[in-house]
């Protein structure tokens, strides 16, 4: 199946008009360039393609979301049906970046609304309309901080998701920027380390809230230490947690980034996701990525345009604030529909259910002999447990019972041999949590 509508008759008419005898004659490819002879599988009709792809999809073993307790950076939430519907509308889905605003007011207003909703959620002044994902958003925030402060050091809390830290290291490996990792003290950022290492050479301190182990960080103390030395305070957040948690704008964050996947976006084996970026007004001209602004047309009517484009690569080339061009606009649209579907009270209830169910799960699991919380500090919807057997073995046993267990923390840090990171969201029920606790208890009996 191809999608080329050119018939033999069309081809004849067109070639005649052009004045050549075949399409090959149009290819001004010199003789010294070898011609391709591709070896690809044979073409498929739509029914054959669907059949093949359904078979492949079935080779992934699906787990009922109620029976999955794995988070660790990608979370299972109910997505209202209209999220997928709106994000699949061709008028949004098959449009390009809105370079011609008069023919793109739908996208532009939706992106302005996404920016506004994200500002409400984070308590920040301004937001852009998406970066690639949570990890690259942290790297972009670091670039802003380096430019703003003209300093050369970054301090990343070890509570920042390990893949985000690795990504930041990749982004700066070639440069003279020094990336320092602040260790953890009982699961949260070591304040003594920060006090002694944040100095006038540090551009930014980056922490994640809740952090990669699910814990709330001592943000007020970190903010004080960071700002006392003129560094920027960057936080990476889980947007769903902001339904109940104090927003970063209230605890003095300069830049807020995060993974927007929890806002109604499929897990999809890691992407496409949504890089969130919001900041203080004073940083607006240093932001990366597309930004939509409100303006007027020649008749005084309200309209929206891409704005502050002189920051961007297509104008500034080598001097741009970022190289980003294609972003994740459709995911931002999905997130906007998701946030508006819940509304103020609904979003609070969503976060409360996450909090409640995760705490119930933690209580139930902690009753199992040999299982206990690793840190005993406040958390949102994810928590680390110490378990009596190898967590990899535990997960295999749970898989046999139809459960997807938590993340064995040794994959992130070898010191946590018996560490197991468990997540519960609104999709779990008391019944599924109880069944999970029982399965864990049974699986832990046999050492």
């Amino acid at each position, binding site marked *: 199946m191809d999608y080329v509508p050119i018939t033999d008759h069309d081809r004849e008419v067109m070639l005649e008009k052009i004045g050549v005898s075949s399409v090959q004659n149009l290819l001004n490819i010199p003789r010294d360039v070898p011609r*391709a002879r591709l070896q690809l599988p044979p073409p498929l009709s739509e029914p054959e393609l669907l059949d093949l792809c359904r078979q492949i999809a079935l080779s992934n*073993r699906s787990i009922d979301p109620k029976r999955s307790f794995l988070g660790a950076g990608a979370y299972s939430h109910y997505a209202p049906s209209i999220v997928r519907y709106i994000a699949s509308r061709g008028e949004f889905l098959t449009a390009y970046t809105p370079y011609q605003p008069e023919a793109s007011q739908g996208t532009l207003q939706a992106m302005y609304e996404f920016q506004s909703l994200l500002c409400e959620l984070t308590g920040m002044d301004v937001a852009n309309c998406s970066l690639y*994902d949570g990890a690259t958003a942290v790297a972009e925030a670091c670039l802003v901080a380096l430019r703003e402060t003209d300093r050369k050091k970054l301090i990343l809390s070890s509570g920042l998701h390990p893949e985000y830290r690795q990504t930041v290291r990749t982004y700066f490996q070639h440069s003279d920027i020094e990336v320092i990792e602040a260790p953890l003290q009982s699961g949260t950022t070591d304040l003594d380390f920060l006090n002694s290492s944040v100095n006038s050479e540090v551009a930014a301190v980056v922490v994640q809230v809740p952090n990669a182990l699910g814990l709330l960080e001592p943000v007020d103390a970190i903010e004080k230490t960071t700002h006392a030395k003129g560094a920027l305070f960057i936080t990476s957040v889980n947007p769903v947690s902001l339904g109940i948690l104090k927003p970063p704008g209230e605890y003095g964050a300069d830049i807020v980034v995060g993974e927007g996947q929890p806002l109604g976006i499929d897990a*999809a084996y890691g992407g*496409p996701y949504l890089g969130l970026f919001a900041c203080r007004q004073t940083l607006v001209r240093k932001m990366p990525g597309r930004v939509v602004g409100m303006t007027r047309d020649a008749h005084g009517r309200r309209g929206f345009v891409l704005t502050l484009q002189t920051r961007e690569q297509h104008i500034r*080339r080598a001097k741009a604030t970022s190289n980003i061009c294609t972003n994740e606009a459709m995911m931002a649209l999905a997130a906007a529909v998701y946030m508006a579907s819940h509304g103020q*009270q609904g979003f609070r209830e969503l976060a409360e259910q996450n909090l409640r169910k995760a705490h119930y799960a933690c209580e139930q699991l902690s009753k199992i002999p040999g299982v206990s919380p690793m840190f005993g500090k406040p958390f949102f919807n994810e928590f680390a447990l110490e378990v009596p057997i190898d967590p990899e073995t535990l997960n295999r046993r749970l898989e046999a019972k139809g459960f997807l267990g938590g993340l064995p923390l040794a994959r992130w840090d070898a010191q946590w041999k018996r560490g197991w990171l468990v997540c519960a969201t609104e999709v779990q029920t008391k019944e599924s949590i109880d069944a999970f606790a029982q399965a864990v208890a049974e699986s832990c009996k046999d050492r």
Partner: protein
Amino acid sequence: MEKKHSPGRILEPLLKDLGQDGRRAFQLPKTDLPAVAPETQIPSDWVRSKPAALPELSERDLVKHFMRLAHLNFSVETNFYPLGSCTMKYNPRVHEEIAGLSGFAQLHPYAPDSLSQGTLQLLFELERMLAEVLGMDAVTLQPAAGAHGEFTALLMARAYHEAQGRPRKKVVVTDSSHGTNPASAALCGFDVVEVKSNARGRVSLESLASVVDHDTAVFMMTNPNTLGLFEEEVMKVTQLVHDKGGLVYMDGANMNALLGQVRPGDMGFDMVHVNIHKTFSIPHGSGGPGGGPVGVKAHLKPFLPAPMVASGSAGYRLESPGPQSIGRVRSFFGNVGALVRAYAYIRSLGTDGLKQVSEGAILNANYLKELLRGIYPIAVDESCMHEFIASAKEMKASQGIKAMDIAKRLLDYGFYAPTICFPLIVEEALMIEPSETESRQTLESFADALAKIKHESEETPERLRTAPHRMPVSRLDEVQAAREPNLRW
């Protein structure tokens, strides 16, 4: 008759103005756990004192709002979208159904390999199919977009030169290159040098030879270039750079023109990225998501980012990187949902289908160029590949009509505008890429509209300068938007 609007009109209220406290578009299941105060679970100073002010709407009102917004957009599904360098081809609907299959959509990125065999198989096969199409030895699927692919490849190039014991500082780009080329090179810490194109819009071997030296890490080249021209001396260009020990990178944004005809690897390129949201029909999504897989030759394979998919007797698995890998360029595996669509596209078309794509794109572009002959001057008027550049410079000289005015007037005729004012080396450029999925009749009506606009430029030039007239809004004040940014409600 053209629509009249009263001043001060609002097309569609903002979400916040549509909200009414107490309405709901979505209801969570009631929890079966007894309620407790949040303060008993987290410290009270952590509990948000005021809920986030998200508007509350009914499902009906929310759908109405976004549908009304949808109707204000032009899109590939509703309009011809000849946006040069963006390859706005039709996006097969079946791909949406496939990507939405729960086996793909619900899979957690940390699901064990035993539960992820289907997705791993698909990614493994896609890597190999892309390597075949590009003539490369290995492919990473991780980059989230073309610019991300450029960045990834340039980091690999840097690591490669360092591993040879001779770090290099310079990246050479052409003056017709996409803005992302120099921006990505700068982000990697390279000094960026621009090389001038010759009078026929191509890389000049002489100029190139004068800037490429033993400090040149990479020469970045777009082929066909942004004027829609095949770089005739490509074999000599890649040889010249290799002779100095440099690497050659192909910006594969225009790969649609080459599918099944020639392969970047066979032209001597060491690295290439391909925009799957252009060439492989992933919908552009009003700006994203897309994907920018990077193909490399064997000598760059050790530097690929982590992780890769491998296959063995126990099935498919994710493999950790070797010691020379540049590391991780993002979280998790990549824009897998987009990659699933690219896989479906290549499997639908096969070898012959891909060739028909490039031939269709080239035929459509040349036919449209022919229809415009004598009406608009064409920059470098030779057989083109998938796109060509018309220019408004004559209309500017005679009537003061700019490319921008033509673009805006085209909207009135129901066509999205070509890319304008790019590449920077053509005065008042209109970069037109019809793609292979448009019919002859569509191209003819588009050419008619451009001919009418030419006529209008002589008869009623003011009509062009103030266009558009039939769109929901007229020309917007971008200066005001940038001077006093209003970026949120």
